[in-house]
């Protein structure tokens, strides 16, 4: 696989952009019976992501972490605050970003290659170019033999690979991943983590990765932002050497300490010994 990565142009022309969130808030109002119910999904969330950095946002379900991704993807406008990619404020979807969703969100009426082609098709790239480019990324995620298969003919892990290939084919400066491996079985999840690590280490695009799994966050990230309800409560730097592998992590003494710390932060403790 290393060969392919070094030779394929898949690695060219992607360059991470920094991401800055300033005071992001997201409030919803709904009238239920006689009550006006206000939900603060996000409340004054600020963070910085350096170019080419891999940052995970971890938190219990319902803490608003997916909302951060939706705002970054341009699918939702924050109630207040702003989010910058590069130096540009996000005003809507754009091809500097690409998203991998939790359910892979593949179009059931399109084959693997046509799913990967979709964003390029929307951007008006001609058929030959987009098919060639799509194939590069399908090979990158190891699905070359399945190019003409339909999504329902693939396993969950393979579908998620297609979702990843589709996002990478955009050659985004920032890759947004919203619990991409949350629906996978344990074996597929580990494989996908390894592959993502391998691909990212060569492409060096910026990644914002949403997860609720501590081990996943430690294995993949440079930094982990811990979210509580609607806000970021803590930040943990993962100072483990790269390139990393699952195996190195298990034998590194620092891993356990990081796990304990994240565990405690997630549980809402202020002082971690």
């Amino acid at each position, binding site marked *: 696989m290393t060969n392919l990565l070094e030779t394929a142009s898949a690695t060219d022309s992607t360059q991470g952009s920094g991401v800055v969130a300033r005071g992001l808030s997201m409030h919803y109002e709904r009238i239920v019976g006689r009550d006006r119910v206000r939900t603060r999904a996000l409340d004054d969330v600020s963070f910085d992501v350096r170019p080419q950095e891999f940052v995970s946002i971890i938190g219990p379900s319902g803490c608003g972490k997916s909302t951060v991704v939706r705002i970054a993807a341009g699918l939702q406008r924050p109630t207040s605050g702003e989010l910058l990619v590069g130096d540009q404020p996000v005003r809507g979807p754009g091809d500097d970003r690409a998203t991998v969703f939790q359910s892979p969100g593949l179009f059931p009426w399109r084959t693997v290659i046509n799913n990967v082609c*979709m964003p390029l098709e929307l951007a008006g790239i001609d058929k030959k170019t987009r098919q060639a480019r799509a194939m590069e990324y399908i090979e990158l995620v190891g699905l070359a033999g399945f190019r003409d298969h339909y999504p329902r003919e693939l396993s969950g892990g393979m579908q998620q690979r297609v979702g990843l290939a589709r996002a990478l084919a955009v050659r985004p400066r920032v890759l947004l991943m919203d619990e991409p491996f949350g629906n996978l079985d344990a074996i597929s999840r580990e494989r996908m983590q390894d592959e993502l690590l391998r691909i990212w280490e060569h492409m060096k695009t910026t990644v914002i990765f949403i997860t609720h799994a501590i081990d996943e966050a430690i294995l993949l990230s440079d930094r982990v932002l811990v979210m509580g309800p609607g806000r970021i409560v803590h930040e943990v730097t993962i100072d483990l050497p790269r390139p990393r592998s699952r195996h190195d992590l298990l034998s590194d003494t620092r891993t356990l300490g990081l796990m304990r710390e994240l565990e405690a932060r997630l549980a809402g403790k202020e002082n971690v010994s």
Partner: protein
Amino acid sequence: MSSMEALAQTIVERERLSRSTVLRRSILSRDRLIQVSFIALILVGWQLLGNHEGDFFLAPPTSVFRTAVDEIPTSHFWSLLGETSKGIALGFVIAAVLGVIIGILMGTYRSVATALNPIISAGYVIPEAAIVPLLIVWFGLGNSPRVIAVVLFAIFEIIVTAYTGVRNADAMLNDVGRSFGASPRQLFVKVTMPGALPFIFAGLRIGAARAVKGMVVAELLFAATGIGGAIQLSANAFRTDRVMFYVVVVTVIGVSFSSAVQLIERLWMRSWHESYRQQT
């Protein structure tokens, strides 16, 4: 080459089948055998019962067949058939075009759906046959009231299914499309419509069958026009065999119309829509 890729190549194998194998698979199947045997069984039962009861009460298939041999070569029969079929085709096309457009508008714009929903729900349950006499009063005995009857019979199914199809669009896929920068037009063409098409075609298939019913009901009530009229006249003359013959003709028209729609659907969708891909 990666290990995953090697894996992929070992799992997926392709083999091209010979033409004769493909042909045999499509003609001789167990399902086909069951269908043909069951129809034969019904025909035999009908024949035995008909022989016992006599032509006046229940004309057996042989009598109906004899009537068919007499009727089919006459120009009278072909003009009846032409008249009826043309009306059905025209009414169905109008219902299809209007119905699909209205359904899509309802699915796309909430206000249109809000405005039309009560009317559609009412139209859906009204027995259209009850309106036909009104159409005669309003439009006379010409061709137009019959075509309008066909439209009324067919259009509501088509509207409701098209509406359901558009509404059924997967919100997730819509987000995916939007996140990759699809314009509203692209979203409609590449995300909403492909998802809605199976619904729309199902509605058109039902609509085609209902169009045939609409035509025959209108003709029966008009008396003396088209195949419905011929059924009425034959019944008045107690010609059970002719009534049955014309009922068979109507059935054949209905099935042909429905199959024609299905054929168009297959040809259009076969190559790209998952639900139309053959299971192996």
